[in-house]
């Protein structure tokens, strides 16, 4: 059966009543979110709200104290490698590349999961093995082109500026051929132009059929990218809905947004004008 035949989008990933307690700290309390096929869901919230912890629960790095995580109805094991094999890939807020490996090698690591050579072929480096390696490299280069890092494949990862490291993490995640991609602050350290390129990249990823969950503090980015947005506050989902609903919710403004961006921009423009005026008179 093909999911595309169902008009109502199928739920790909579902966290149900996920609670995560560390010692005396309840980082997540009964969090339920679901991701439908082909959608982009945003996850926002104050610092320390539990956003990254939720990603860690979704990817098997943490075993939730209570609750379950299901991928297409099937419960996921608390084992990151098995979760990746089941089709969930992620990037990290604190970038976790292999710093001393080249850009291409980092992508190949992601590719490894989908390669089929056994230990014997690997030892003897026979024609099958070599073809496998060639194909993997070709695929890795395609992914580097897809994320816009073509010319940097031989560069050592640690020498890349932050924004490029984030793109490389995305390429490595895509190399595992995921159905679901979790992005933890993909535009941190990018300027507006680069952020816009990242937004377009995520749309292109979605268009290949991958469903996406994004954590990000750049609200202009998140509200213009996501189909729905969930707001996590102190480990609980405070609000979820369309970007418009979330943006205008007074509780979200109070706990998270502060002054709306337009207001900040207006204040900046006013201050700049006043300054210019003053200097003009001087």
């Amino acid at each position, binding site marked *: 059966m093909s999911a595309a035949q169902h008009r109502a989008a199928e739920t790909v990933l579902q966290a149900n009543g996920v609670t995560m307690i*560390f010692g005396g700290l309840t980082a997540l309390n009964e969090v339920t979110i679901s991701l439908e096929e082909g959608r982009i869901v945003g996850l*926002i*919230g*104050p*610092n*320390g*709200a539990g*956003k*990254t*912890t939720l990603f860690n629960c979704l990817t098997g790095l943490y075993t939730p104290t209570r609750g379950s995580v299901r991928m297409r109805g099937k419960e996921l094991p608390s084992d990151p490698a098995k979760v990746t094999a089941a089709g969930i890939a992620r990037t990290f*807020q*604190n*970038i976790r590349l292999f710093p001393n490996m080249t850009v291409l090698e980092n992508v190949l690591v992601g590719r490894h999961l989908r390669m089929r050579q056994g230990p014997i072929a690997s030892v003897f480096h026979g024609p099958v093995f070599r073809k496998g390696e060639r194909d993997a490299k070709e695929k890795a280069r395609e992914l580097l082109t897809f994320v816009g890092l073509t010319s940097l494949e031989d560069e050592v990862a640690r*020498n*890349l*500026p*932050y*924004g*490029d490291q984030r793109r490389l993490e995305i390429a490595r995640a895509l190399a595992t051929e995921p159905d679901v991609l979790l992005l933890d*602050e993909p535009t*941190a*350290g*990018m*300027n*507006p*132009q*680069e*952020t*816009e390129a990242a937004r377009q990249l995520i749309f292109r990823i979605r268009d290949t059929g991958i469903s996406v969950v994004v954590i990000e*503090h750049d*609200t202009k980015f998140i509200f213009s990218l996501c189909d729905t947005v969930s707001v996590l506050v102190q480990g609980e989902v405070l609000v979820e809905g369309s970007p418009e609903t979330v943006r205008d919710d007074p509780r979200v403004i109070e*706990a*998270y*947004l*502060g*002054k709306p*961006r337009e207001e*900040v*921009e207006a204040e*900046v423009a006013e*201050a*700049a004008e006043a*300054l*210019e005026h003053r200097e003009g008179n001087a």
Partner: protein
Amino acid sequence: MTALLEVDDLSVAYGAIEAVRSVSFVVEEGQIVCLIGANGAGKTTTLRTISGLLRPRAGDIRFDGRSIAKDPAHTILERGIAHSPEGRRVFARMTVEENLQLGAYTRKDEAAVRSDMQRVYELFPVLGERRNQKAGLFSGGEQQMLAIGRAMMSKPRLLMLDEPSMGLSPIMTQLIFDTIKELQQQGTTILLVEQNALAALALSDRGYVVDLGATTLEGPGHELLADERVRAAYLGT
């Protein structure tokens, strides 16, 4: 006004790759100066070189009229330059309080250190509430707060902040920018690298655009805000 920091035709390379080709700027005492520019422009490399973590290949860095280009990092900190690095780099296995104490390790005035620490806790209540917990248990944004607090603890004459708003919620970002302004009013000179160019330029006395390893444009913050080239490239407007 006197120049506190002068960076003169700086060039820095990682092996064969020249990350900084020709960066020149001046930070005058009491000012907030920001460097803006695309990823890979050389902003972080410039700060790391000022701190003594990297060596210049050519050019000079003068602090208070004296070259610090050949000084080791600890001497540069003692001279009064503190650095809140990109990517936080807090000591994950040490507590919040220990991280802050490390920030103050060049200081002998213990009473003042205590009161400055209190001030960090007032600014970031979450750090005060959990001061005895290991830094590694904190969220990314909370670690960012700690990195800024730690840099403040050395009571530097020049505070360098590399992307202080990274990972922080919009409301917390506003708080950080308000704090930077407040630190300036209390006499700290600030060198800021920030992708949030709008907020950074609005706050800064002077801004420099860094492009492909070289400073290309400069001016008062509000002038750069109005500059068409800056608007197109860095403000997304």
